[in-house]
């Protein structure tokens, strides 16, 4: 069934198509999909009208928004915010409401436009020199007042050091539920937010709902949700909001922000990760992993066993107690695949595992497994990749 109208290009005032008469100037709904109709559409006598339903869907309901906290540091939006916006978009579409973000910052500097291009329909921006850097009390005040006024139905925060400091403070003040470190979000019966999170060190997944209290709030693990493609032409609304803030609102004072000069290991944003585990046997053998990683332009990861053995720094650790990653390619070398490691990498697009033991649990999550000696396989890979 299609919806059509007779085109202005049609020389006749009415069309008789297999017994159905269509008159110029009128719209016709539910026209059966017949050869005559299709022919007239192809010849340009008939125009297919867009389903009105989709137009209605584009008109989002006001209020009841899905709100994302736009964490920024040094005037740069945290990557997890874009991940959250992709998910918020999905949830908002299911609920037929708008996606909003709340941005606290000293100066906008095009940040709100960037947020819109990643999926925000509405940006509430609080500009104030006091909001330049994250500070628990001021941020909590601004967001609590906003929530009380605008009554979003869902609020999402990145489960970063900032998000995990801020969100519980807010939840307690406005007396609502908060689910920590979610790895899955969906809408379930009764339009409730279904929040999936690991518990007991990743041994168990729990699905949490917040039945009566509003808003429903979650912190979400960075690196789990996929970023939706940026659309610079996306339109959105920017709402400037002012907040009455003073130094007196601050119970804690930030005296200094110290950046540590160590080379940053950026596992969460890596497209390719090569990880090594206990199978490497000793610290020196990590050179193999580093060499393969270099060839693939990849970051180096490690299992907890390798980190605990002191072969590599903790910032390389992948797993429930380390980083959660979802690169395009994850190569696990000499990693047996303890639950806690798998919890941190099983969402990778493509997983290749190399392990001598054909029964190693890592093969349960691998797309391709090589049950062979890593000291033969990895050098062979290095030589194959070097030769091309």
């Amino acid at each position, binding site marked *: 069934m299609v919806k059509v109208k007779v085109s202005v290009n049609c020389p006749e005032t009415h069309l008789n198509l297999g017994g159905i008469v269509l008159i110029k100037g009128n719209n016709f709904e539910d026209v059966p999909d017949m050869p005559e109709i299709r022919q007239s559409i192809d010849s340009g006598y008939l125009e297919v009208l867009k389903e009105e339903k989709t137009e209605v869907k584009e008109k989002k309901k006001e209020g009841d928004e899905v709100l994302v906290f736009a964490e920024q540091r040094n005037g740069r939006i945290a990557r997890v915010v874009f991940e959250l916006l992709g998910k918020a978009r999905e949830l908002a579409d299911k609920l037929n409401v708008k996606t909003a973000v709340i941005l606290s910052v000293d100066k906008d500097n095009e940040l709100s436009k960037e947020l819109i291009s990643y999926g925000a329909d509405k940006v509430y921006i609080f500009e104030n020199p006091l909001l330049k850097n994250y500070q628990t009390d001021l941020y909590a005040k601004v967001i609590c007042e906003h929530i009380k006024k605008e009554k979003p139905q869902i609020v999402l925060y990145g489960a970063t050091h900032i998000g995990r400091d801020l969100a519980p403070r807010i939840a307690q003040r406005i007396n609502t539920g908060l689910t920590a470190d979610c790895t899955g979000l969906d809408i379930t019966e009764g339009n409730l937010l279904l929040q999936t999170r690991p518990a007991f060190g990743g041994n168990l997944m729990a699905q949490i709902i917040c039945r009566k209290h509003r808003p429903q709030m979650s912190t979400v693990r960075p690196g789990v949700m996929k970023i939706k493609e940026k659309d610079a032409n996306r339109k959105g609304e920017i709402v400037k909001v002012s907040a009455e803030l003073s130094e007196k609102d601050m119970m804690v004072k930030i005296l200094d922000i110290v*950046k540590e000069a160590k080379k940053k290991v950026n596992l969460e944003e890596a497209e390719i990760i090569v990880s090594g585990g206990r199978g490497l046997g000793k610290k020196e053998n990590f050179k193999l992993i580093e060499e393969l990683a270099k060839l693939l332009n990849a970051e180096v990861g490690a299992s907890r066993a390798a980190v605990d053995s002191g072969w590599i720094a903790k910032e390389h650790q992948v797993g429930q107690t380390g980083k959660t990653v979802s690169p*395009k390619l994850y190569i696990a070398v000499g990693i047996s695949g303890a639950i806690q490691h798998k919890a941190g990498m099983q969402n990778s697009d493509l997983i290749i595992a190399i392990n001598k033991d054909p029964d190693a649990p890592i093969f349960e999550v691998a797309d391709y497994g090589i049950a062979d000696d890593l000291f033969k396989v990895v050098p062979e890979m290095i030589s194959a990749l070097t030769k091309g």
Partner: protein
Amino acid sequence: MNIIVCVKQVPDTNEVKIDQKTGTLVREGVPTIMNPDDKHALIEAVKIKNKHKGELTVVSMGPPQAEEALREALALGADEAILLCDRAFAGSDTWATANALGSAIKAIGNYDLLLFGRQAIDGDTAQVGPQVAEFLNVPQITYAQKIEISDGKVKAERQMEEGYEVIEAKLPCLVTCISEINETEYPTLDGIKEAYRNKKVGVWNADDAKADKSKIGLLSSPTSVKKSFTPPAKGQGQILRGTTKDVVKRIVSILKEKELVGGF
């Protein structure tokens, strides 16, 4: 300088096993321990107490067997211990737990410093600390890797992803500690004797803690567990067979196909 430390007794998650048939946690035979971050908070509290004098009280909420964790805390140097143990507390989510602990801390009163672990290994939420701080309307410093007390103020290094912040707050203040703050310690034999012979664990019910019964327990908790399950295994992939050379050749061609290696 009166300090209150909150600790939780947790199952050692490294030892947790899954019943493959039912997909549920096997709790039998799993040892319980004092939550590691909480232990670091306690050790820090003992150090501060030894320097600045005052009372160190340790509080836990849990079943009667959580007394073990409190005895360990007493053995490590706490002066007093209180166990919040009442069916009315059971099933509390983090909001309700914060109401229960917050009420108890208010009832104890006269505190300068509240130390918590950043998070517990069974839930990994890191929420209860900040939620208790909000309940009591005191400043919070989370993820502390270093604490100094002077002139009625606490100065702490708060760990961030790419470094740390130096934060200052007036006492009373609530600080959550991470493992980097100090080295783990073990109770001495004298400490253990002292904990069992001369120190007491007070058991409080909801009334003793002056807790609002409409704000604690399972039914008052905003969040509830709808379902729990074991993480699904990703569909089994294929094991590549053949000589090392052949297998590597295939892997490399798969990577090229998927454009994961370029320029070769």
